[in-house]
């Protein structure tokens, strides 16, 4: 009660000042920002600073800035390069990885040791609260051989392991700090970090202010001394308006409709960066009509994904031909995909006996989801289904898809690594814990192929395996692939003046971050 009365007094003061100033007039310009800050706006929220705790997009972006991993990926070439691990050896049987750590320090100045690495990886692997232990699913144990050496033992040989060790949640945290402050407190506001930045201030739901970590192991990085503000703004309109007004330096997830316009703006560098994102439509295999193969095929053929890609993304996206993202390794570029053939679709639907069946299309409230849902609805209506769009927020979206209480849901996902292992496990594997991305698609043959792909080290053979997976799942219409979209990111050219081009390892140059429905925020977030 005390604090409340205090705040009221202050509020009253503010009101009085306001009155005085309003009377004087409102025509002055305020510099939009101080020059020592780089402001990046994204729709995604930071909800936790513990790299183990979340797989949500805003957090992934943040983890990249705060925590170093054993390996890092070269942003130019995409190749894996040494991170905290200066070098590593793989045992001949492919089951033991020995990482040799470089001399590096946490942001509090303490050295990063093997026990920190072991502690961090072990949490990710076995802590119950770990959001995404899958990448370390093959690991049997992580141990610190000496302060500079980490031994990782796998259950069996696992080709993509190194790639997985680079994934966003593999960030190394300080064991001593977590044990000292406790798990919650250590990450509540200012964690000890190992990455290029440390937290200056975190205002949940509003912005995260980062400042360079003076103990970061890559000397000369980050290249700017500027603090970085990750600002959360839900409405794409507002984000663009802020960029145009010069209030911010970079905008993620630029709406397609704005791309052309922004390209024409002198002060803005509008980039379309390749991504592993695939837009697709989930189908619920658990219930009619899409438990029926012919109905799924009909639904797939009814959709003109070339036209949709052109219409929705203004031609910036490629039509998708398989269930996997177009830029993952072993993507089968030659596969013809599902042909657009409404007549055949009608026929197939008639054969399936699902004509006039109601289809519940779940739609999150962002503009692309809405557009996609509407277009799908119209195309399915044309072949004789009875599609109904149901708008939900992300909470309800996950609830409904998780329970299988839907028939179709337009969405998108991306793969964290170029290796397709995690992608297939996520999207089409019925026995990998993801229920094939809540579609409940389950084909034992595919599951078998997924396991083979993991174990196989030979690239040519792996290519065959993943080709087969793509063929089977696309033919069976596990999902309806729509298009492969680049990441549309707009930068203020002011950044170049600061010699912080997007191509260097600046803070904003993380891999295009996850765009998942968790963060695909419904209109309520986007607008008033």
């Amino acid at each position, binding site marked *: 009660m005390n604090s409340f009365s205090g705040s009221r007094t202050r509020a009253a003061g503010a009101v009085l000042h306001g009155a005085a100033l309003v009377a004087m007039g409102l025509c002055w310009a305020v510099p939009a920002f101080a020059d020592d800050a780089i402001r990046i706006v994204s729709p995604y929220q930071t909800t936790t600073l513990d790299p183990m705790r979340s797989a949500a997009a805003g957090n992934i972006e943040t983890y990249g800035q705060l925590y170093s991993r054993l390996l890092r990926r070269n942003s130019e070439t995409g190749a894996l390069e040494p991170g905290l691990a200066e070098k590593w050896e793989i045992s001949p049987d492919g089951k033991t990885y020995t990482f040799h750590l470089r001399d590096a320090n946490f942001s509090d100045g303490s050295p990063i040791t093997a026990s920190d690495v072991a502690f961090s990886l072990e949490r990710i692997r076995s802590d119950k609260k770990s959001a995404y232990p899958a990448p370390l699913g093959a690991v049997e144990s992580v141990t610190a051989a000496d302060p500079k050496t980490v031994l990782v033992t796998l259950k069996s040989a696992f080709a993509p392991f190194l790639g997985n060790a680079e994934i966003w949640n593999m960030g190394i945290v300080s064991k001593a700090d977590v044990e000292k402050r406790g798990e919650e407190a250590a990450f509540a506001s200012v964690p000890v970090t190992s990455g290029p930045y440390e937290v200056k201030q975190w205002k949940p739901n509003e912005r995260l202010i980062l400042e360079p970590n003076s103990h970061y192991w890559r000397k000369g990085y980050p290249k700017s001394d500027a603090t970085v503000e990750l600002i959360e703004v839900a409405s794409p309109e507002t984000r663009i308006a802020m960029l145009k007004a010069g209030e911010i330096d970079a905008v993620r997830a630029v709406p397609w409709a704005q791309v052309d316009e922004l390209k024409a703006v002198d002060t803005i560098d509008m980039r379309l960066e390749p991504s592993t994102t695939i837009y697709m439509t989930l189908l619920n295999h658990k219930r009619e009509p899409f438990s029926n193969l012919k109905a799924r095929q009909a639904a797939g053929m009814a959709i003109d994904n070339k036209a949709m890609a052109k219409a929705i993304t203004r031609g910036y996206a490629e039509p998708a031909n398989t269930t996997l993202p177009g830029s993952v390794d072993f993507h089968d570029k030659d596969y013809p995909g599902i042909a657009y053939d409404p007549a055949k679709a009608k026929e197939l639907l008639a054969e399936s006996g699902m004509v006039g069946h109601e289809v519940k299309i779940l739609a999150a409230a962002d*503009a692309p989801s809405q557009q996609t849902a509407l277009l799908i609805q119209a195309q399915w209506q044309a072949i004789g289904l009875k599609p109904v769009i149901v708008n939900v927020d992300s909470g309800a979206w996950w609830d409904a898809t998780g329970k299988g209480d839907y028939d179709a849901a337009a969405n998108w996902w991306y793969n964290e690594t170029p290796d397709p292992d995690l992608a297939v496990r996520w999207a089409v594997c019925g026995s990998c814990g993801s229920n094939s991305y809540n579609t409940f698609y389950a084909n034992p043959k595919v599951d078998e192929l997924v396991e083979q792909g993991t174990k196989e080290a030979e690239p040519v053979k792996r290519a065959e395996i993943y080709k087969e997976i793509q063929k089977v799942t696309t033919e069976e219409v596990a999902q309806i692939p729509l298009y492969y979209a680049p990441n549309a990111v707009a930068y203020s050219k002011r950044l170049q003046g600061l010699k912080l081009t997007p191509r260097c390892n600046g803070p904003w140059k993380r891999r295009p971050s996850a765009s998942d429905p968790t963060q695909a925020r419904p*209109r309520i977030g986007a607008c008033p």
Partner: protein
Amino acid sequence: MADSPILVQTAPPARIITPTMLIALVILGGWLVTALAASAIAPYDPDAIDIMNMLSPPSAAHWFGTDQVGRDVFSRVLFASRVDLLLCVVGVLPPLLIGTTIGLLSGYFGGVVDNVFMRIYDLTVAFPFFVLVLAIVGVLGPGLLNFILALTLVGWVSYARLVRAQVLTIRESEYIQAAKCLGYQPATILSHHVLPNAVGPVIAYAVSDAVLVMLAGASFGFLGMGAQPPLAEWGVMIADGQAFVQQAWWICLFPGLAAISLGLGFALLGDGLGLLQRKGVTA
């Protein structure tokens, strides 16, 4: 006595149809005709998607342009009037009926009944409207029907308060005492003597409430909680158009203007009715 002080004696003689009322009736009548004849007037099917003709600006072919999936905005604005007019009526009636009943009982009988209702008033009033609607819609799912339900749960309070205040005065009036003295049943007194005299301001309020309902409908359609796609509704159209307002201002502008004009019709009607009501009381 041109410079004599203001001493308002009497309002100008009451006419049933004042100019503002006339304007109101013309607007409302216009929208009613539009709603009924939407299919005849509209040049396009409001739900027809034209994937190659998205976000095209107003032109001879599309007077109000097309929206993000190539639908004709003009046709959609016309068709949406059906939903919005209906929303105004259906959104007002349930809170009106419930609120009036509760206000009558609460005001007339007083005592425990009144106390219980007063506490519920307090609760509802202190409850942030949006949270309640969001939560209700969250529990029951989005859609117009659930939206109206949520609106009713909140909206009855205004009516109940209004009626209660009226009833508190009316129940002290001598004609109610006379009715009691004549041995009429409480139900008779309430329905034949209290209600007819309490209902005037309520009707006037209800008409202005229709504006608020429409705005709320638009706001919540805007928040994804009103009409479900592809059903054309002005709020939803504005909401969907917001993501494109930089290039395609027409998607937002026209539904907004339509909503304002319908709101104006109701507001003017309510204003006129309120004026009549006040004159009727003092006359």
